[in-house]
C-alpha cells in the first residue's frame, strides 16, 4: 500500500524533473538497487521495502538539473546537511519522504542463514522470510537491521515535499545513539589499539566507504591519493590505512549524518563508522550540535565562538 502511494507520487512528480531516483529490484531477491527513472513506464519497477538500504541522496551534489529523490528518515538528514553547507540548490530537488521502521543489513541476513545461497526473499510486515536450500526462515527486521536502525531518532524524514504515509515517532531513547561509543571507551588503550590494528588491517583501500559517503564531496582530489601534499603513501601498512580513515573521519567532523553507508558498503566488513560516531558524540557534547536536523543550523566547524561554553582554553 505504501508502494502504491509511492508510485502514484512518482508518476505525479516525474514530468517536472529530469529523473526520479528511487529503488528497484536488484540482481537477486535480497538486493535492491538505485533506479534513475528516465521513462514513466519504469514506474512499474519501483519498490519500497526493508531491502531499500542505499542512501540515494549521495548523487545530489553532482546533479545539475532538477531531480526528485526518495528518502528515508536517515537519508533526509543528508539533504538538510547539504543545505547547511550550500552543497545543493533546494529548488532543484523534489523530496519524496517515506517513513521507515527499519531496513535490513544484508550481511546480517546472510549470517542468519549461514551464508547459504538465497533462493527467495519476501518482506511481510516487520519480517523478512528468507528461503534457502534448507527451507524458509522468518527473521524479524529488528533482529537483522544495521546498528543505525537500533537507535534511530528520525524514522520520519525531517524534510520533504511529499510524505508517503503517516509520520512515525521514534520509540528509541536519544541516549542510546552513542551507547556503543561509550561502551567502546571502557576498553583499555591496549585493547583499542589491538582492535583498530586488526580491523583496519583488513582495509584494501578500495574507497567504497569514501565514495559512498554523501558528505564526502572532495573525493576527486583526496588526500589518500594525491602527491601534493604527500601525506599518505600507497604502501599498505596498518598505519597508512589508519591514516586515511582518521583523516576521512576528521573531515566529517560535524558533518557525518550517520547514514551508515560507509559500513554497509565495506567489502571487508570493517566497522569504519566507529570513529565517525565517536567524533559525532564529541560534537554533540561540545557544541550541542546534531547533524542534519535543521537547515538553518551552522555546522560547528564552519564557524566559531570566541568563548566556547564547554572548552576550557585559557585555563583561567
Amino acid at each position: 500500500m505504501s508502494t502504491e502511494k509511492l508510485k502514484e507520487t512518482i508518476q505525479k512528480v516525474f514530468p517536472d524533473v529530469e529523473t526520479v531516483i528511487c529503488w528497484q529490484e536488484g540482481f537477486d531477491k535480497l538486493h535492491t538497487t538505485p533506479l534513475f527513472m528516465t521513462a514513466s513506464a519504469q514506474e512499474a519497477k519501483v519498490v519500497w521495502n526493508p531491502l531499500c538500504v542505499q542512501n540515494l541522496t549521495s548523487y545530489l551534489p553532482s546533479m545539475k538539473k532538477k531531480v526528485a529523490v526518495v528518502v528515508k528518515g536517515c537519508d533526509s538528514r543528508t539533504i538538510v546537511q547539504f543545505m547547511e553547507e550550500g552543497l545543493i540548490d533546494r529548488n532543484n530537488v523534489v523530496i519524496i519522504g517515506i517513513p521507515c521502521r527499519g531496513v535490513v543489513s544484508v550481511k546480517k541476513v546472510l549470517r542468519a542463514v549461514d551464508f547459504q545461497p538465497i533462493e527467495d526473499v519476501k518482506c511481510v510486515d516487520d519480517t523478512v522470510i528468507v528461503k534457502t536450500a534448507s527451507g524458509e526462515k522468518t527473521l524479524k527486521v529488528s533482529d537483522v537491521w544495521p546498528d543505525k536502525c537500533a537507535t534511530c531518532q528520525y524514522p520520519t524524514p525531517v524534510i520533504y515535499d511529499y510524505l508517503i504515509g503517516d509520520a512515525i515517532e521514534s520509540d528509541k531513547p536519544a541516549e542510546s545513539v552513542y551507547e556503543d561509543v561509550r561502551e567502546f571507551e571502557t576498553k583499555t588503550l591496549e585493547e583499542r589499539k589491538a582492535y583498530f590494528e586488526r580491523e583496519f588491517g583488513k582495509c584494501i583501500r578500495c574507497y567504497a566507504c569514501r565514495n559512498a559517503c554523501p558528505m564526502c564531496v572532495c573525493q576527486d582530489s583526496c588526500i589518500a591519493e594525491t602527491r601534493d601534499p604527500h601525506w599518505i603513501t600507497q604502501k599498505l601498512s596498518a598505519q597508512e590505512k589508519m591514516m586515511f580513515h582518521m583523516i576521512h573521519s576528521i573531515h566529517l567532523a560535524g558533518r557525518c549524518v550517520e547514514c551508515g553507508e560507509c559500513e554497509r558498503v565495506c567489502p571487508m566488513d570493517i566497522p569504519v563508522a566507529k570513529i565517525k560516531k565517536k567524533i559525532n558524540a564529541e560534537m554533540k557534547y561540545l557544541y550541542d550540535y546534531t547533524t542534519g536536523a535543521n537547515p538553518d543550523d551552522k555546522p560547528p566547524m564552519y564557524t566559531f565562538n570566541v568563548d566556547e561554553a564547554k572548552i576550557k582554553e585559557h585555563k583561567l
Partner: protein
Amino acid sequence: MAKTGFLPKEKIKDFLDALSKDAQVHVPVKEGDIVAFKPYSADAEICLTRPANTSPKAVIYPQCDKLLSFEYTKDPEDNKKTSITLSDKRDYPNAVIFGCRPCDAKGFTIFDKVFVTADYVDPYYREHREKTTIISLACETPFAGCFCVAVDGGPADKVGSDVLMTDVEKGYYLESLTEKGDKVLSLPMIQEGASYQAAAQKIQTEAAAKVKNPLPKGATEKVNPTLFDTDEFWQQVAAKCISCGACTYLCPTCYCFNITDEAARDKGERIRTWDACMFQHFTLETSGHNPRPVKSRRLRQRVGHKFAYYPEKYDGVIACCGCGRCIRHCPVSVDISEIVGYLKDPGQDPKTWIERNTKAAKDGSL
C-alpha cells in the same frame, strides 16, 4: 591419463602442514562474517563452504609490490656529485593457493597473456607465478551473482589450476592438471583416487547445470558496436555507480596498476600498487585534461576492456571469469552481467534504447 588422488577430510591439516614445509600456503579463512585468503596457520578457521570475499590474486600479484629500491650517495670527495644505486633484487617465497574456486584460477591465465609476452616480460609477476601452485575447489552450487558459464567457464573448470579438488563427502577427489599438480599428489597422505572419479564427475556435471546463464538467448559473440559507442547507454547503466574501486580490487581478472616512488631523504622504493580504471583520477593528466572525466566513460572502459578489447587482442578470450564478486559487493549493485546482456542482446537496437530512455540525464554529471 592424468594423475588422480583422494584426500580424506581428516587429513587436511596434515596436507597443509606438508605443503607448508617449503611454501607459504594461502587458505580461505573466516574472519567474522567475511572469508579472506590468509597465510595458513594451525589455528586458522578455514572456510570452504562459500567463495571468499576477496580473490586470491594478491598471492601472485600483491597489492603492493616493490619494483626497485634506490639510494643516493654523495661523493665524499666532491659533495656536488651524487651517484645512484638501484636494486631490483627480490626474494619471493614459494606459495600455494589452497581452496580457491576455478574462476579464481582462471583469472591468472588472463594475467599471463598480459604480463608475459614476446615483447616484454614482467619479471616480478613471472617469478611469483612460477613459484605458486594453485589447488582449486570445484563448486557444488552457484552463489548470488555467479555467471561463470556465460564467460566460457564453469564450476569445475580446469583452466588455470594445478590441482582440482571435488568434495565427495568423506574427502576430496583430486585431479592433477600440471607437473606442479603431480608433485602435490605425490604427498604421503594422498590416497588412490580412481574409485571416486565417478562420484566427482556426477557432482561436477550437476553443478554446471545449476549455474544460470544471465545472457539473453542467442547472445552475440561480440558486443554490439553501435550500442557500445552510445553515450546515453553508458549514462543510464553508470548512473548509480559511485566510482570506487571495490569491483576492481576484488576481481580475479583486473590488473591495472600504479607506479609511485615513496622515498625518505636519500633512500626509497619504487612500488607497484593496484589501481582502478573506475577511479576518477585514473587517466587524469597533469594539464588537468581527463579523457575519461565522467563515470559513464570509465564504466565503458572497464566493461569494454573485459568484453571487447581484451578478446579482440587475445583470440576471443574474455577477461572476466564470472565469479560475481563485483556484483555481490558493489555498494549499489551494478551488475556487469546485466550490462553485457544488453550489449550482446541480438535484438538490441541502440535507437530504440535511446527512445525508451528519453530523459537520459544529459547534464554532464553522468
